[in-house]
């Protein structure tokens, strides 16, 4: 109990500067809008955005649900593709030489320009958005996993071999656990860009989702609604990121803190 309260106090201490800064910025925003008498459609003050958030919560959460579904489906597919590609790259030199350069080169193509093509090929339903999310997220997953799997030292592999381990056992019991801290770092990057991916996909062609709602509300000068959608998107992104950090903390609970990346990227 004391530990729990202590943890809460520590968390409050860690987060309070950021929260106070954000509150101050919001206050300044509010004040400037009122003081300069800026038009609502040009820049709505935070109180109006908050009002919009409450008034349209049903609409916003319905579209947020669709965006979240695209993100989760895309992330899941990306995980499968990423693990398969990274394993292949680490396992065989031929795979590495033939695939890895193409994967890296593919990242120089602006994915935003691929989205219209995907709409033409796949249509405006959810799958085009899932594909855009996959395109955005598989790269950090593959790179982090390849780096992690490569960080296994040869002496440990030898130790496993002298214990009579098969290649599959070495992969499962040595290489995967060694790669986990790196992999989680990649997942944290991937989950954040997955939100961007889903919004871009919706922007180009969709009939639902927060990106679509923003695209629709802009030209109608429903600026407060655009801001409210941004707030909801941020909440979605922060929630997903926190979920990954929680899974990471649990998965790496036995790792010494020097190997635990959570401290560097997750909180503090």
């Amino acid at each position, binding site marked *: 109990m004391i530990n729990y309260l202590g943890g809460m106090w520590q968390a409050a201490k860690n987060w309070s500067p950021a929260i106070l800064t954000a509150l101050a910025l919001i206050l300044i925003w509010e004040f400037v809008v009122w003081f300069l008498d800026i038009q609502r459609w040009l820049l709505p003050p935070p109180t109006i955005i908050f009002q919009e958030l409450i008034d349209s919560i049903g609409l916003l959460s319905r579209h947020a649900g669709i965006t979240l579904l695209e993100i989760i489906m895309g992330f899941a597919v990306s995980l499968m593709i990423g693990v398969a590609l990274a394993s292949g790259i680490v396992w065989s030199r031929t795979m590495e030489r033939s695939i890895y350069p193409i994967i890296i080169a593919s990242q120089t193509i602006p994915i935003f320009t691929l989205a219209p093509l995907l709409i033409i090929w796949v249509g405006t339903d959810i799958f085009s958005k899932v594909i855009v999310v996959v395109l955005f997220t598989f790269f950090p997953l593959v790179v982090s996993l390849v780096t992690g799997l490569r960080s296994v030292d040869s*002496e*440990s592999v*030898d*130790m*496993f*071999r*002298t*214990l*009579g*381990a*098969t290649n599959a*056992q070495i992969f499962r*019991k*040595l290489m995967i*656990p060694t790669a986990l801290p790196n992999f989680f770092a990649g997942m944290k990057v991937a989950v954040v860009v997955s939100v961007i991916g889903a919004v871009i996909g919706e922007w180009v062609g969709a009939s639902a989702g927060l990106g679509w709602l923003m695209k629709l509300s802009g030209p109608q000068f429903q600026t407060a609604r655009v801001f409210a959608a941004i707030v909801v998107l941020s909440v979605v992104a922060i929630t997903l990121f926190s979920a990954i950090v929680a899974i990471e903390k649990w998965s*790496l609970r*036995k*790792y*010494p803190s020097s*190997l635990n990346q959570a401290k560097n990227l997750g909180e503090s």
Partner: protein
Amino acid sequence: MAVSTVHKDALLTVSGVGFDYKGIPVLDNVDLSVNRGEFVALVGPSGCGKSTLLNLISGLLSPGKGTITANGISDSSGRLGNVSYMQQRDLLLPWRTIAENCQLGMELRSISADVSKARVQELAKSFGLFDVLNHMPWQLSGGMRQRAALMRTILLENDVLLLDEPFGALDAITRTALQKWLLSVLVRNDKAVLLVTHDVEEAILLADRVMIMASEPGRIIAEVDVRLSESSIESSFTSPAFVELRKGILALLERQEVSL
């Protein structure tokens, strides 16, 4: 120390073994054998191919020339998992407890967790690790980690045991304590033990026979019987027999250096 064997019951035989690395000969015509219940030490300068020899015996490498038979197995890859090999570094997995690290070999052989756990607990008492079985490796001292690594190796229950400078990275006080402890653990065992070390005193204290190696290419140049009486082990480093043996071995090693 270990019971002297009258019969030549060799568990490990290395005959005429040569090994090249990138065209450079590392080992040339190495012959040695270790009998059941015998403890043999290999002593030589750094880079003389001692570790390469252990890699060959364990099956991690295949010899270019000659044959190696350990516990009746001559096929290199067949020896993997059938020769217990403790490398220089403890290589404990940081995400596993000491118990889980020691269970690794049995786990890889699909021995049930209950059985392997029981065996680890049984052995942990004599290894002085019983109270730290649920600790993580980073919580242990260097000496304890080294003992845990030896326990993981010994739990494979192979008759041939290879030790590559097991105490090399430890401070002098811990090293001496562990050497005496290792003697007590391995007393009256029925294994064939081959220890690689550059520490002559360690070799004399632990082994029945010491093989002396020279480098470039690595080869065995002499063999010394170093069996000490029980009383000599007690006073070890100061007993006249010990001092005499050490002088002799150092002379053999030094002669080698001069000729280089």
